[in-house]
């Protein structure tokens, strides 16, 4: 599967399975334990803020920002969503916030989360960086 074929996000890791019983998500960059941590972080963030957090890990086409915004636009409710797009091979990261989200999550706060995520990624810790980023963004966005 390539980035182009990835038409929609997986709702929960377990659902993203093939008929053979081997979930495709296990071919992704994370171990089962990391997937569980990610799922927990996403669920907590969604529940506490009322926003929809989404994480994309894969190649981003140039121009990168436009591609990330396009992915963000494909979410069910882009206005109330946050997309974290991470490309480990290109070594870049985009955080996209919707119109509604932006009021609660100013670009300055997003940049702060991006900085700490990039610090973790620079150390080779993909899952840790993403979990930290989600927690920080949810924290800044505050309660619903």
């Amino acid at each position: 599967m390539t980035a182009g074929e990835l038409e929609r996000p997986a709702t929960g890791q377990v659902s993203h399975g093939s008929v053979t019983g081997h979930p495709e998500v296990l071919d992704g960059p994370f171990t089962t334990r990391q997937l569980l941590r990610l799922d927990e972080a996403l669920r907590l963030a969604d529940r506490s803020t009322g926003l929809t957090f989404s994480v994309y890990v894969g190649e981003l086409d140039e121009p990168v920002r436009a591609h990330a915004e396009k992915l963000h636009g494909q979410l069910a409710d882009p206005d109330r969503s946050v997309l974290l797009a991470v490309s480990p091979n290109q070594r870049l990261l985009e955080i996209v916030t919707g119109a509604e989200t932006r009021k609660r999550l100013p670009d300055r706060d997003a940049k702060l989360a991006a900085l700490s995520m990039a610090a973790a990624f620079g150390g080779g810790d993909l899952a840790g960086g993403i979990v930290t980023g989600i927690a920080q963004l949810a924290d800044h966005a505050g309660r619903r």
Partner: protein
Amino acid sequence: MSVLETVLIFVGVPAAVVAVVAGLVYGGSRRGRRYRPGRPFEFTPVWFLSSQAQPSGVGYPAGDDRRAVTGAAERAALPAGEEGPEPAAAAPHGATGGASDRW
């Protein structure tokens, strides 16, 4: 001490130790793939949403996209040639914010 014993002790034992250590090193980690910045990293792209909408942790079937990409699907469902209202994604597009970074 016979020649056979000498060989067993001074060659066999070190060889066995080396074999055990090599086995631990190369066979210990199930996944050899680990992300290191600057080195190519092969993986399948993934895109996650939280699974909070799923009652009692039961996953939706892979084809069920009730939470995802409804905007794109609705746009695709419009008859060809009929413009319809401006796509929903276009309105928030200019208003998106966020941040970028590299490492």
